[in-house]
């Protein structure tokens, strides 16, 4: 599987090489993404996972590692890990083992993190990543395992103390480890975006990077194309796509500079300083770690039946790739389909419109060309937009039913955007209905022709000038005439043959 993906990326990679003084370099990227499981309670305790609570108010005695406290696993979290594994087309391990990863840190109360080391719950899988230009990259998934989150230390409240809040401690995380299959910061960002879409479609993680529900450790190395993998550095805890791209680019350049000036890359853990736009070694990780992993004796091996996995598989929603294929089968362009499936909200919005019986292609065009553009301009997310999927469906339908022209459709959208209301009654009350009465349009066409004899002659010689007449008629009818009817009548009157 890994070899296959190497080949795939080899083909796409050539254009993304970074030029150094000794020639071109290739950047090799692998991601370890921590996704917070959308559960009510923590992985091994009954404390709440809600975001933003008062310090240490969501901490059980288990989470605080008080003497004698013991972990009991949350079944829902296990189910979500299986669900995510299935979404990554990965192998599900019916028996897995929780290990202790031992190290001392202020926000790690037990002195160990319960994680999965040798036997994770999910094995190899893959994610297909859509790259600009329609190319699809395949990123191998090495594993997904369940583990506990650590607490949070606040370092900037006092000159000589750090304050520890354990509200996060013990929250369930799925760590999804990719193969080093990405070859540019854009690919890494596209992979993360796709992974985020998948977990959000699955409902296993909210993908909220600002709140830290999704965080990535980025492994970066560089090499001359065709060379074996070089020493890598790990940039820890990135929770913004933009910074990930910046960090990778900075780090790749830094490594190239080191290598080209005869230096060696030291394997280290880095932090990305967002203010300076630079990576720097993490002080707290300077010491070489020896985690002394061993199976947690407080827990038995985790095992479940294939039948349960099958049950979960049967309840899986349609995922972005399948949705994209279904949309393109409805006549959408790959580009339009990708835009619509990229975010779960967008896809859901479009699905509502489809369920209301709109023409798929017309609806996709309408959203992509009109509605999303306006949202963008206004800086609004789809969920904040003022026009419902139902209202947009009505607009698209009215165009299809020849009730309004495309100009009329934009007018309806303007009114909905500014004032709200129901599209069909807006069309009625504002007189936006398109004129389909041929005799009325004929009258208008005749009037324009009669008023412009010189232009008639010119148009007969150069048929493209017919457009000017169409424009005049549309203007005269206040944009309500059906443009196709106007076009046909103008051409008939001018004696220009209809083409096509």
């Amino acid at each position, binding site marked *: 599987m890994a070899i296959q993906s190497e080949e795939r990326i080899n083909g796409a990679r050539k254009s993304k090489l970074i030029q150094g003084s000794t020639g071109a370099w290739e950047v090799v990227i692998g991601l370890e993404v921590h996704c917070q499981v959308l559960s009510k309670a923590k992985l091994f305790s009954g404390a709440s996972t809600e975001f933003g609570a008062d*310090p*240490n108010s969501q901490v*059980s005695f288990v989470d605080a590692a008080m003497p004698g406290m013991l972990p009991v696993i949350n079944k829902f979290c296990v189910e979500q890990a299986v669900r995510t594994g299935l979404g990554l087309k990965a192998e599900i391990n019916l028996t897995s083992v929780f290990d202790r990863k031992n190290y001392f840190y202020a926000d790690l109360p037990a002195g160990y993190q319960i994680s999965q080391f040798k036997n994770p719950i999910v094995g190899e899988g893959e994610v297909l990543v859509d790259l600009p230009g329609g190319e699809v990259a395949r990123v191998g998934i090495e594993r997904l395992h369940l583990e506990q989150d650590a607490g949070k*230390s606040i*370092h900037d409240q006092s000159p000589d*103390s*750090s*304050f520890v809040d354990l509200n996060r401690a013990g929250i369930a995380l799925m760590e999804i480890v990719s193969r080093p299959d990405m070859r540019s910061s854009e690919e890494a960002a596209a992979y993360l975006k796709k992974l985020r879409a998948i977990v959000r479609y699955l409902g296993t993680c909210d993908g909220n990077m600002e709140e830290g529900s999704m965080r990535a450790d980025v492994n970066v190395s560089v090499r001359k194309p065709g060379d074996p993998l070089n020493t890598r550095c790990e940039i820890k805890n990135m929770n913004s796509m933009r910074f990930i791209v910046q960090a990778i680019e900075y780090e790749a350049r830094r490594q190239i500079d080191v290598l080209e000036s005869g230096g060696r890359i030291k394997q280290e853990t880095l932090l990305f300083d967002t203010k300076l736009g630079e990576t720097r070694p993490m002080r707290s990780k300077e010491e070489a770690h020896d985690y002394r992993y061993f199976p947690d004796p407080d827990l*038995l091996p985790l095992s479940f039946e294939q039948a349960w996995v099958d049950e979960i598989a049967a309840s899986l929603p349609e995922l972005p790739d399948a949705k994209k294929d279904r949309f393109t089968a409805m006549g959408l362009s790959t580009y339009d389909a990708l835009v619509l499936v990229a975010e779960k909200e967008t896809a859901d919005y479009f699905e509502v419109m489809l369920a209301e019986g709109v023409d798929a292609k017309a609806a996709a065009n309408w959203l992509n060309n009109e509605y999303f553009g306006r949202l963008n301009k206004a800086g609004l997310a789809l969920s904040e937009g003022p026009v419902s999927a139902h209202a947009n469906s009505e607009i698209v339908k009215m165009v299809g039913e020849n009730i309004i022209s495309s100009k009329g459709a934009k007018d309806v959208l303007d009114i909905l955007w500014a004032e709200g209301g129901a599209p069909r009654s807006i069309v009625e009350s504002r007189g936006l209905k398109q004129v389909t009465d041929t005799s009325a349009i004929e009258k208008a066409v005749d009037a324009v022709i009669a008023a412009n004899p010189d232009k008639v002659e010119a148009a007969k010689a150069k048929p493209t000038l017919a457009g000017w007449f169409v424009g005049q008629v549309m203007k005269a009818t206040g944009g309500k005439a059906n443009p196709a009817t106007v076009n046909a009548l103008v051409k008939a009157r001018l004696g220009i043959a209809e083409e096509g």
Partner: protein
Amino acid sequence: MSVDKETVRRIARLARLKLEEERVEPMMEELNGILAWVEQLKEVDVEGIPPMTSVVEQRLKMRDDVVTETDHADALMVNAPGGEDHFFVVPKVVE
């Protein structure tokens, strides 16, 4: 296998146990006494023997996803040697 002084220092550091320099050598001797004694396990052929993962033959029990804990912030601070405003306080850590 036996440990040298450097190993004793390294283990003590890993275990976060302050070991005064004059204690390193005696500790090394104590540890080597124990390690020499456990060395006899090498006699046993364990080829193909699975390591024990649990002495009880039971499937791991799982709980439902229900919040059962209330706010224990006060109770957590009862024993805290450096508690302040419901935070645990430690000397400043530089990341």
